[in-house]
């Protein structure tokens, strides 16, 4: 049975759709190539505040590249990105981070030489202001800051239920837990928009359920807008408000999960067309 058919599911949907606001992020006509390879071709879509927006598509469709463009890791040859009312031709990673966009990575990108706690604390770096000298002496404001931000990080650790691992070097954790640390680090930035790149890849059913719960909780409790790349269709259909479908770098579908599911072009992209 679909979640949306259950009474609780319908209530939840109603609650969510009443919260969804105006578009906060929009990509317009973005094209990206590497040498001769076209990663993205004239892609446009928007993301509304507080919604959960999924980006789906077959492998190599350009989904991660799209997130990289939003983050400022890649610079598109054409197109613009509108965020918080300002238009950019390409994004500067630092500015992006400062203005409240955080992300997780498909291949984790955790800092292998540090513990879980330290990894998540790096997410707080933008909010830590004390000078080098004070850090060197570790007195006064510097020490207070460390404790303050440690408290925030501990709350996130509680939220994601990884307390037992906080002093473990991340390299030693199983994959599912590493993904949670990746998410925790992104959350530590207190973002307005959270970009999740295949957060459930390689997880079993229980881990996926946990991760779904976390994502929904983040969206519910903190109102964070979520842009989510995901392959698992049931997850996408269940938790997203709207879906964008990419194939070979082009957008071939955009709408609610039900609309997209019925879209002929999407079906063909996934199942192939007999010629």
């Amino acid at each position: 049975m679909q979640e949306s058919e259950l009474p609780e599911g319908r209530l939840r949907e109603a609650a969510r759709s009443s919260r969804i606001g105006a578009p906060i992020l929009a990509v317009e006509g973005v094209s990206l190539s590497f040498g001769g390879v076209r990663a993205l071709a004239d892609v446009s879509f928007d993301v509304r505040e507080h919604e959960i927006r999924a980006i789906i598509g077959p492998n190599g469709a350009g989904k991660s590249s799209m997130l990289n463009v939003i983050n400022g890791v890649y610079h598109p040859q054409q197109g613009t990105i509108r965020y918080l009312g300002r238009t950019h031709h390409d994004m500067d990673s630092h500015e992006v981070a400062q203005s409240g966009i955080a992300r997780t990575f498909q291949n984790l990108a955790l800092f292998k030489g540090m513990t879980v706690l330290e990894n998540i604390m790096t997410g707080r770096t933008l909010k830590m202001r004390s000078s080098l000298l004070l850090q060197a002496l570790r007195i006064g404001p510097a020490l207070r800051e460390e404790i303050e931000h440690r408290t925030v990080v501990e709350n996130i650790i509680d939220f994601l239920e990884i307390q037992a691992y906080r002093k473990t070097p991340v390299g030693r954790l199983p994959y599912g837990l590493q993904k949670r640390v990746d998410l925790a680090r992104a959350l530590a930035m207190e973002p307005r928009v959270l970009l999740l790149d295949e957060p459930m890849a390689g997880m079993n059913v229980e881990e996926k359920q946990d991760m779904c719960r976390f994502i929904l909780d983040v969206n519910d409790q903190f109102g964070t807008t979520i842009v989510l790349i995901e392959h698992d269709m049931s997850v996408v259909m269940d938790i997203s408000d709207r879906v964008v479908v990419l194939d070979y770098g082009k957008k071939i579908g955009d709408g609610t999960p039900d609309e997209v599911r019925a879209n002929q072009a999407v079906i063909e992209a996934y199942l192939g067309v007999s010629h």
Partner: protein
Amino acid sequence: MLYRENGQFKSSYAADLQMLPIAQDRWLMLALVLFAFVAVPFLVSDYLFLSILIPFLILTLAAIGLNLLVGYCGQISIGHAAFMAVGAYAAYNLVLRLPQLNFLIVLLLAGLIAAAMGMLFGIPSLRIKGLYLAVATLAAQFFTDWMFARVKWFTNYSSSGSVSTAAVELFGWTIDTPVKKYLFLLAVLIVFTLIAKNLVRGRIGREWMAMRDMDVAAEVIGIRPVYAKLTAFGISAFYCAVAGALWGFVHLGSWEPLAFSLTLSLNLLFMIIIGGMGSLLGCYFGAAFIVVLPIFLDQAPLWLGIGISTATASHLALMIFGALIVFFLIVEPHGLARLWAIGKEKLRLWPFPH
């Protein structure tokens, strides 16, 4: 059963954030420091001070400097003795031309000058990394070699190219005997180690390590690569400069530009490889190793009753050196510090096997 954290619960983050959260560690450290300050002066001969302990203390300081850059921030430098040279010559010129300055201020200023230079030579790291950066740091090494050898102002127009200094005077003390030198250097090293420890476990340390581990992700989190890298270069140069000044003033007394050559740079690098990159304790281990090894190789044949010439001994030293570097890189890339940590973990479980 000795080394356990049982019963040591922390009830505040502040307590958990202490430098040495385990009580046994704190006691051990206290005992060690007391021993170093109080007992060692009576137990150790002058020869040992001059040939082992004093070089060890100064080289540890330099190794900490290099380790901050290479081990924590992940930038390579094979020319770091250049900054030691800058520190030594800056201190020399400051003492010469502004003799009224307190020596600690001299060290501070020398460090700042080197920090500025460090940041300058760190600029290439913004565009290049790894081997390419290594070559850029070589440029720093050879250029400063040349500069201090040729630009006569630095050596006060000395005809031989070498400079000499008087004993350091500090707060009315003249630091001329081996014991006084040892105590002074020990105090300086402890202070600088504490500062390094604070930096490393604070925000900047995490930014450095993030840059080392995955710089793209670090940028996405909001870490500024420029800031992280240049502070690493600057602070690292500062430490090496202070070490260089101490090397020249306290250890050598007089020196020529070759005292800070590529050999010293490579020695520093080997210290942190063998000791453990990314570990302050490793700097101590590595420096001790590098200082003791040549002496050991000199003396060992005598103990074993085999006579070999000094030339052969030095060749043998080179061979063993080279072999050890390769050995450590293959077997334990995290150096002696990792072996120490593994030992500690085993000790926590002792007498149980796991």
